[in-house]
């Protein structure tokens, strides 16, 4: 759940590109023991904060709301994919739990795409 907290310059920041999005893009590496992440809009106005639990690399996405299996992943106010498993707030959102809604099947969402 997003809690309203003032921005601290030492804290991690993630950008919510559109107000309808359920994922935000991290502008910091989240370490293995997690971190509090400040959510900001594209113009960097602070909106709230969430707790990220796991290591997540810079530039990757984290969920700002829980996303049930089969639900749309929304970024830029549009559907960018489908959740292939339930996703909690603060969890890493990427190829291990998202499939394209246009190409490939949901079953191939957690396939052996190496990277």
């Amino acid at each position: 759940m997003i809690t309203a907290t003032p921005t601290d310059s030492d804290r991690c920041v993630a950008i919510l590109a559109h107000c309808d999005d359920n994922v935000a893009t991290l502008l910091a590496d989240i370490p293995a023991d997690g971190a509090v992440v400040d959510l900001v809009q594209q113009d960097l106005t602070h909106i709230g904060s969430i707790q990220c639990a796991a290591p997540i690399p810079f530039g990757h996405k984290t969920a700002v709301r829980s996303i049930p299996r089969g639900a749309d992943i929304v970024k830029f106010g549009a559907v960018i994919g489908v959740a292939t498993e339930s996703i909690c707030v603060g969890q890493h959102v990427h190829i291990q739990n998202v499939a394209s809604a246009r190409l490939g099947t949901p079953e191939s969402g957690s396939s052996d795409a190496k990277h």
Partner: protein
Amino acid sequence: MLVLPVGQCANELAARVAAGIPAAYPFLHTQPCAHLGEDNTAAQHCLIGLGRNPNAAAVLLVGVGCEALDADDIMDDMAATGKPVHCVTLESAGDFERAVTEGRRWLRAQSEAVARLHREPVSLSSLTVAVKCGGSDTTSALAGNPAIGRAVDDFIDRGASVVFSETTELIGAEHLLADRAATDTVRRTLLEAVHRAEERIRTTGVDPRGIQPTPGNIRGGLTTLEEKSLGGVLKTGTRPLQSAFAWGSRADVPGLAFMDCPANVPQLLIGWAAAGATLLVFSVGGGVPARIPSLIGTNVGGLPLLPIVKVLSNPRETDARRFFDIYAGTILEQSESLDHVAGRITAAVLETASGTETLYEQHPWPGHQIWELLTHGPTV
């Protein structure tokens, strides 16, 4: 001065004619006598377009004399621009060395006139700019692409034309562009092109991930093609889409245009130059592709007809900044506004269009260049 083979058999003639003559550029390419119908038509239009490009001061068409394309038609269309155009063929010259001699004599005679050309102010309606993404990661859509989009809006409002392409990378975002189409024809042409691109992928039965998005995109945080496309479309700004045309062709009205071409850089550069673009703004996210000094995605370096303004988004790519004309990651570092970066992009485009060399042009990769034209049909 463009030295343009009518077919690939004339590549050796073009290279020999241009050798050592300053400002002569042999556009060596892959047009064979083994293509049919539409591919030949597209190639012919493409060669005409390259010859007509404003960055070509003069054009020497060279051929063997037995090509599938019509040298006379190509010449006439290019000559209609008023620029000096000449044609030399093995057939008309009699033998190879005589063809080389005649070609070089003509080029040297043109050199003086070309050297005397001077710049004069023109309105932005004379300018066509192409825009492209490469090495995309999630920072592209948060910095470089929206800043380029603002600059694109500004150019179009001031009368310039802007063209984008990479049809495959519109899958997932095409509805946004379709909503901006100025006419039903434009809308239909765009949607059909994207549909064809999607079908081509589907019919292979292969999971496209690892190709679209690429391993580099995925490493940089892009999860699906839709996400990449939605981020990419930001570089097209917000203005109406006025035209949609096939590779090898050109827009018929000014403003924002879509050119149907896969995300293969050499073919994109050729297509845009043939469509009259004289400059490209190349938005790069980050990761290892950003660290290639010249250009990513091209096996042949750049095309002299199309100077490239390179824009970098990812703040983590500190060492690679020296390869870029514009660093847009300041937006994410909170040290510069999006509008201010857009202003710097606009200024760089105007300076480049007025003759200032881009970083790439100052340090070109001197690789041997053979340009691959886009084909759809069989090679027989």
